[in-house]
């Protein structure tokens, strides 16, 4: 037992001291008063950071409702949700196609989907700037192929952020669906056909239910990082598509409002934990009827 504790100590202590404790500290900072020139006043507690999320003081020093921040949160949830949906719609047929390939090609395809998963997110996002910007690769290729002039005007809009998010997280969705379909018992498919099912009906009634665990797992793997995304909205969305991540960063940068930034981080973390708990409960509900 002592040996086990000693073996576990480095990894557990490192994460405990340099992640779990800082998260606790962040929660504490969110209850502090903002210092006059930035920073915080230690020991001076206030719920200002959380009140500020919904209210602001108007000119006559009255609290009035301010939906700016709520709107940014709603936008983040909406963008992460649409990203999840689009990834699911692309990933399900893709995984299905991969599963029905011969084994050697299947391995290659899994490898090809995994590579972007492990390549630099920043670099992959940057590539989209080259494609989407005015006078960029897409407009250039369009003109070059004789299709006339094309004005995309899409970079630095929510649409570009959405493309970047789908692009960043698509492999996170394909792989779990693929894994849940990999061991698909082909006799089930044959049985469905024998019973007179058409192909669409077979997919809907046999394959879709079997891939549900993968869809849920993938949905979570896309939604959670999508919610806290920082790189895509920052590089592709411009100033108009502020998401939670960018808002948090602003509080520690220009705005110098640490308690508010900490409170926002804490709310984001809470949203993520809620998504995880919902997922765990759903899985449990299925496994233990």
């Amino acid at each position, binding site marked *: 037992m002592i040996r086990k504790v000693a073996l576990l100590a480095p990894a557990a202590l*490192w994460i405990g001291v340099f992640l779990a404790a800082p998260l606790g500290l962040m929660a504490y900072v969110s209850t502090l008063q903002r210092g006059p020139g930035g920073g915080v006043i230690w020991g001076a507690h206030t719920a200002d950071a959380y009140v500020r999320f919904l209210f602001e003081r108007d000119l006559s020093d009255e609290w009035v409702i301010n939906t700016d921040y709520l709107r940014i949160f709603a936008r983040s949830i909406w963008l992460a949700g649409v990203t999840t949906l689009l990834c699911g719609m692309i990933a399900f047929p893709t995984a299905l196609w991969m599963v029905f390939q011969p084994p050697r090609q299947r391995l290659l395809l899994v490898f090809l989907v995994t590579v972007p998963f492990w390549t630099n997110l920043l670099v992959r996002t940057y590539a989209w700037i080259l494609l989407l910007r005015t006078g960029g690769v897409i407009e250039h290729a369009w003109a070059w192929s004789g299709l006339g002039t094309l004005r995309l005007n899409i970079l630095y809009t929510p649409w570009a952020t959405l493309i970047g998010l789908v692009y960043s997280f698509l492999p996170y969705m394909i792989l779990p669906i693929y894994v849940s379909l990999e061991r698909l018992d082909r006799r089930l498919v044959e049985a469905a056909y024998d019973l007179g099912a058409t192909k669409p009906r077979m997919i809907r009634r046999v394959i879709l239910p079997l891939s549900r665990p993968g869809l849920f797992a993938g949905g979570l793997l896309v939604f*959670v990082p999508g919610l806290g995304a920082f790189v895509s909205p920052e590089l592709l969305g411009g100033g108009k598509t502020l998401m939670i991540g960018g808002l948090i960063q602003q509080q520690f940068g220009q705005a110098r409002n640490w308690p508010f930034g900490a409170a926002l981080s804490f709310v*984001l973390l809470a949203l993520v934990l809620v998504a995880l708990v919902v997922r765990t409960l759903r899985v449990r509900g299925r496994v233990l009827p």
Partner: protein
Amino acid sequence: MTGLSLWRMPGARVIGVAALLFLYLPILVLVALSFSADDSLAGWSGFSLRWYRAVFADDNMLAALRHSLVVASCAATFATASAIMAAVALDRARFRGSSTVEALLGLPLVVPEIVAGIAVLLFFVLIGFRLGLISVIVAHIVLVIPLAYLPIRARLSGLDPSLKEAAADLYAGPVACFRRITLPLIRPAIAAGFMLAFIGSLGDVVVSYFVAGPGATTLPVYVFAMVRMGVSPEVNAASTLLLLISIAVFTLSSRISRRFM
């Protein structure tokens, strides 16, 4: 079987091929443009290495690349060592608190990067830890422990328990058993875990952005700052370098795990 056509999914095939193109075209465009002779950033006018020469003539960029490699090597080494120990301790173990420890080891995968970055930054500022390369390494170790831990853990739980029992029967103590039996068997997983941890650290921009002090900029942070200023052919070349390093290391790690596991 009622005929092969029933296994074919023409619609799925179209979407699947399109999805792969979608995943790879932007990367290929970036790599191609980094070798383009002109600086139009959209067209091709002949092969040239001038942007790579520009990168290697830029002292700041070289320093950033060096920082990235130092951080990734240090973080991956420490993370892998601690992950091996943790995986050995948790293998087939059910003791009080083992699931808590397991959850703790998975925590870095769950916390959004931006939240982790802010929290660690606040912590460093509070305890008066000077921001520099060391602070980046400390934060990266946290991020990449799970990446090193998961493959090692998976390999350990796939080992035949009778091997260890046979070693014990032959009077091998726990240390000898680990050195002579377990370690050789999990070596491929250790290599794979180390490489994944290395790429994980190399790819991080968000956490580094917060905890890298002045003079400790890593290459992704440097590129991020440059991209915010606008696109440039040098960024293409630097990005391609980052891309190629991570693809090469990942390919190596997946070859190792496929051959030996």
